[in-house]
């Protein structure tokens, strides 16, 4: 009979200890990839936030339209810095914090939330960890907004609409 010798005993012991050790190795491996991918997402979010800060499209003639256009540009910049297949099963979607949408001014910018499994082995479980990357560089006033403010300033002086040509003179006061 097979049980009358100790053949395979060390194999069984090796398998049991090795599987536990490999489980921990996979846990730390996945944690390392989570951190590395996290850095890449942070960088892409930061680059997208830079684009969101300065983008000002002439094709839009309203502040809201230009903000939305800026977010479209920011999303493209994000995808350029973080191509779709760079992170396996990436499920994040870039979101904007527009100015004047009930968001506090220091939090104007873009953010993204995504999940990744905590571990790929049986040690630690495969429950997802939620990661949120934020970059709040703000948003520069658009030219539409600048024009509206200049127009409002001219109106207070000339008491006419902005279609009337007016010459403003700085008296140095």
């Amino acid at each position: 009979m097979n049980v009358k010798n100790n053949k395979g005993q060390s194999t069984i012991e090796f398998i049991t200890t090795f599987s536990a050790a490999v489980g921990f190795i996979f846990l730390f491996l996945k944690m390392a990839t989570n951190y590395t991918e996290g850095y890449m997402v942070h960088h892409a979010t930061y680059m997208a936030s830079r684009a969101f800060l300065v983008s000002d499209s002439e094709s839009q003639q309203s502040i809201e339209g230009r903000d939305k256009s800026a977010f479209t540009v920011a999303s493209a910049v994000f995808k350029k810095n973080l191509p779709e297949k760079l992170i396996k099963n990436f499920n994040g979607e870039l979101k904007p914090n527009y100015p004047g949408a009930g968001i506090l001014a220091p939090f104007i910018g873009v953010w993204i939330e995504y999940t990744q499994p905590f571990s790929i082995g049986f040690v630690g479980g495969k429950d997802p960890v939620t990661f949120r990357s934020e970059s709040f560089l703000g948003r520069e006033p658009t030219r539409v907004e600048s024009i509206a403010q200049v127009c409002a300033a001219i109106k207070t002086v000339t008491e006419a609409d902005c279609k009337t040509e007016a010459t403003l003179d700085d008296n140095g006061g």
Partner: protein
Amino acid sequence: MDVVWVGKSINLRLLRNNLGQSVVEYILLLAVISSLGYTFYNNKRFKAFIKGNDGMFATMKKGMGYSYRYGLEYKTEIPIDEKMSFNYQSNKHDTYLNPQDEKSRFFAGSKPYPLQP
């Protein structure tokens, strides 16, 4: 009498060699270790340490998510659900506002720059 004699001969034959000794020892040791392991595994404190919302791996998960978002070390006294659901409607962002002393982490000069002479 014949039956007793046969029984004795079998017992003696089994005891005359050490075949199976290591198997018996292995089984006994395995039973002891298994029972110890089972007791240890079923211990409430051990289970709480490994599993559950405040277990080791759950704390590691929370720590990863918190430190990734706020750039700060996670501590168990931090209200993680509240922090992770922060929706930019107040100033309670831990990267911006120190929750311990309720002061901004940003700083500026306390006095204005002196005017040029």
